């Protein structure tokens, strides 16, 4: 609608975006809580969990950073580890160059908050017709961000007292990636790159082990995608 006012564009986009973030809410609630609890158990209270989550917002690296906080002070190691663990974001950025075009100030936050889960949603889910694209992506990014920050602070405050057994609940994030993988490869032209990513990461896991698989997997995938460009673009 041409004359739709800004608040209702924002509200409409929120209604469209929120259901997509529910699996992330589930997964982040569990993992964020676990992160806050773990930080608190090392003497770093909710304030530190808040700072780390709000400034870095990088789930798996935040867990890795706990090791950095419980050993001899080494800022260079912290920077290098962060660059390595987070290297996959480079590919997310390349993927979102076109989709995040022309979104003004919102774009800065979209890039800042481009974590695995937000990327998987904004790269796979198409905003419904009539929905403001910028607001739709912003709500997904902002909601995911708030879930993570809130859960990690709550974990720091509660310190491990959870009302029920949540073992396995974090599988929601794995399931989310499985679902979005299926949705991606439904499109015919995406089937080969999807299977390539799966296979290359499998090979990297086998060759480099679970702790060092990200960079070998990225290099292998990139190599295959570049070598197969002519066939994949046909």
């Amino acid at each position, binding site marked *: 609608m041409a004359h739709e006012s800004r608040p209702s564009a924002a509200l409409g986009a929120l209604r469209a975006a929120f*259901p*997509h973030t529910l699996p992330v809410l589930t997964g982040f609630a569990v993992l964020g809580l676990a992160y806050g609890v773990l930080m608190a158990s090392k*003497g*770093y209270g909710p304030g530190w969990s808040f700072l*780390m989550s709000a400034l*870095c917002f*990088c789930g798996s690296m935040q867990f890795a950073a706990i090791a*950095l*906080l419980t*050993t001899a002070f080494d*800022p*260079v190691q*912290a*920077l*290098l580890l962060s*660059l390595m663990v*987070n290297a*996959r974001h*480079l590919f*997310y*950025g390349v*993927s979102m160059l*076109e989709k995040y075009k022309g979104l003004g100030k919102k*774009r800065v936050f979209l*890039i*800042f908050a*481009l974590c*695995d889960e937000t*990327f*998987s949603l904004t790269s*796979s889910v198409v905003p419904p017709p009539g929905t403001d694209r910028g607001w739709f992506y912003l709500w997904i990014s902002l909601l995911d961000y708030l879930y993570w920050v809130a859960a990690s602070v709550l974990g720091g405050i509660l310190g491990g007292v959870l009302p029920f057994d949540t*073992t*396995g*609940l974090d599988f*929601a994030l*794995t*399931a989310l*990636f*499985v*679902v*979005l993988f299926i*949705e*991606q490869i439904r499109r015919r032209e*995406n089937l080969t*790159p*999807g299977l*390539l*990513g*799966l296979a*290359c*990461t499998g090979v990297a*896991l086998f060759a480099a082990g679970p702790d060092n*698989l990200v960079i070998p*997997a*990225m290099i292998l*995938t990139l190599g295959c*995608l*570049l070598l197969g*460009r002519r066939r994949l*673009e046909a």
Partner: protein
Amino acid sequence: MTPFLTPGQTLCVVLMVMLGTLCTRFLPFLLFPENREAPAVVLYLGRVLPPAMMGLLVVYCLRSVDLTAGSHGLPEFLAVAVTAALQLWRRNSLLSIAAGTALYMLLVQVVF
């Protein structure tokens, strides 16, 4: 428990982790600004990387599963299979994720 690092050192580690994260997130957008057309190969990668990265993330989530010990990855395998099959059949994302997660919780808490 008292923290291992001083508050100043902790803040420094937080800022270093933040710097590393910011670099990896902003670099592509700084290299290929929106007012200029990116090279064709970058646009090509932008199209094929999303499905490839989704494949990476699936394996990444399952990287610590030990096939040789414990439950031999059976709960993970079953829950992923049910999630994928439901999604292919009904195409209802929340249903697939909820059912897969519930099955996984049941398997790891009660069965195995």
